[in-house]
């Protein structure tokens, strides 16, 4: 199946490959290739972490501005132009806040909880591609890796809920765990249908399979049910309204976060927003063609009469790819924020019913339907 992916990729533009260029230029300077690779390795990772953090700041600002607009307020205004520095000020405030650990809590688990929540969320950025080679590493397990990492998060939530020795926290932690296990299976099955169409779990192969026909080739047309299942389940995994029961403020004060303050609270906050952006990016990758633009760039290049292999076209192509991925992702973030002010929170029994009695059967049917369509129309469904 990997040879299939490779062959397909060779038909398209190879695109910009920073790693090879970097390593080649270092080896030309006389550095052995192993050392050059070791120098290269942390660079995209640090860039990705910084990018993810900046993405969170942008999302927090957007959330505030869009929420304000939904309620006919102005929102943050004075800190920087249009209040863009408000999230930075939030972060600074939280750094200087005192760290209160309840006397009756378990201090080790209390600290470990938010850490375990944040690390896997950041780690999932490993597989988010922004271009043919603009990905930290194109592992063959791609989306499966993400699904397994996302199931580590509830352990951290449960841990912090339990360690707080507070009734609200414990209930919030339990709800968080129940919610994420209920929606993980529909999520995994929706991803599975996409993986089946591209014959690979690699995110790069999944985008490759959607390329070539512009907006018409995107998976959303072939997987409309899967798209909806994935989006609902992703919102539930991120604990966004209407699925924010673990921190339902009217019932549970702040759920598992009740006893947290200062930087540990900030880690939860960071984790939830990183997770939201990550889910939006993955919806873009799995269903909305990833870095592909609605009109194929190769088509535009042909119309303009530019050779596909010219160097500047590769740079333009990479820039368009990154912009497209982010545009699609932030469009979904926008929808998530609007949903927050549109739909009310569901009850816990409604939440579990939706997960087990609706999404699970529907996602199974969607998977089998995809398999049947793949047999009937092998060309249209990825051969």
């Amino acid at each position, binding site marked *: 199946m990997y040879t299939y992916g490779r062959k397909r990729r060779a038909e398209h533009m190879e695109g910009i490959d920073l790693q090879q260029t970097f390593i080649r230029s270092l080896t030309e300077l006389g550095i052995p290739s192993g050392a050059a690779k070791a120098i290269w390795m942390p660079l995209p990772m640090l860039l990705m972490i910084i990018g993810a953090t900046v993405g969170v700041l942008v999302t927090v600002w957007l959330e505030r501005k869009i929420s304000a607009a939904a309620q006919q307020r102005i929102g943050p205004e004075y800190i920087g132009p249009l209040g863009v520095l408000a999230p930075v000020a939030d972060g600074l405030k939280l750094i200087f806040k005192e760290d209160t650990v309840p*006397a009756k809590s378990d201090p080790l688990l209390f600290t470990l909880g938010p850490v375990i929540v944040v690390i896997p969320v950041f780690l999932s950025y490993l597989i988010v591609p922004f271009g043919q080679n603009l990905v930290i590493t194109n*592992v063959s397990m791609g989306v499966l890796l993400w699904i397994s990492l996302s199931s580590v998060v509830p352990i951290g939530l449960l841990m912090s809920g339990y360690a707080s020795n507070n009734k609200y926290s414990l209930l919030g932690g339990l709800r968080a765990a129940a919610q994420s*296990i*209920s929606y993980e299976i529909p999520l995994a099955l929706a991803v599975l249908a996409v*993986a089946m169409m591209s014959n690979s779990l690699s995110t790069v192969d999944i985008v490759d399979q959607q390329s070539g026909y512009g907006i018409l080739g995107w998976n959303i047309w072939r997987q409309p049910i899967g798209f909806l299942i994935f989006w609902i389940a992703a919102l539930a995994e991120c604990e966004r309204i209407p699925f924010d029961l673990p921190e339902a403020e009217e019932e549970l004060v702040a759920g598992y976060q009740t006893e947290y303050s200062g930087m540990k609270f900030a880690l939860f906050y960071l984790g939830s927003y990183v997770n939201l952006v990550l889910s939006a990016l993955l919806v873009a990758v799995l269903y909305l063609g990833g870095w592909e633009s609605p009109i194929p760039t190769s088509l535009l290049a042909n119309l303009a009469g530019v050779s596909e292999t010219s160097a500047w076209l590769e740079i333009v192509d990479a820039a368009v790819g990154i912009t497209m991925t982010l545009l699609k992702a932030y469009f979904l973030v926008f929808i998530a924020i609007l949903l927050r002010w549109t739909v009310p929170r569901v009850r816990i029994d409604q939440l579990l019913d939706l997960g087990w009695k609706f999404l699970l059967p529907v996602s199974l049917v969607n998977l089998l339907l995809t*398999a049947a369509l793949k047999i009937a129309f092998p060309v249209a469904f990825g051969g």
Partner: protein
Amino acid sequence: MFVLSGYEYLLGFLLVSSLVPALALTAAKLLRPSRRGPERRTTYESGMEPIGAAWIQFNIRYYMFALVFVIFDVETVFLYPWAVAFSQLGLLAFIEALIFVAILVVGLVYAWRKGALEWS
């Protein structure tokens, strides 16, 4: 090691992303004030003196969901290799998966009828 090529990046990225909480917590530790008193370290319970602890025995309704989850999670993991290699397997694999899913759907219907999926 061929199968695991590319996974050294996973380890590297694990280290890099562990830096985020490590740096954040260390920076906060250096910068924040610390005033400790017995009052501020009490457990929050809407302004009341906490009644009892949270570490007690209680009925977890989510337990049944956890059991059903394990069953379906294993099912999903079994389906992953099937789906990825599906184009080479053809019609027979489809029928096999149909039988496999049908057995599990019977399990789901059983759990449903038994009330394992009811929250109350």
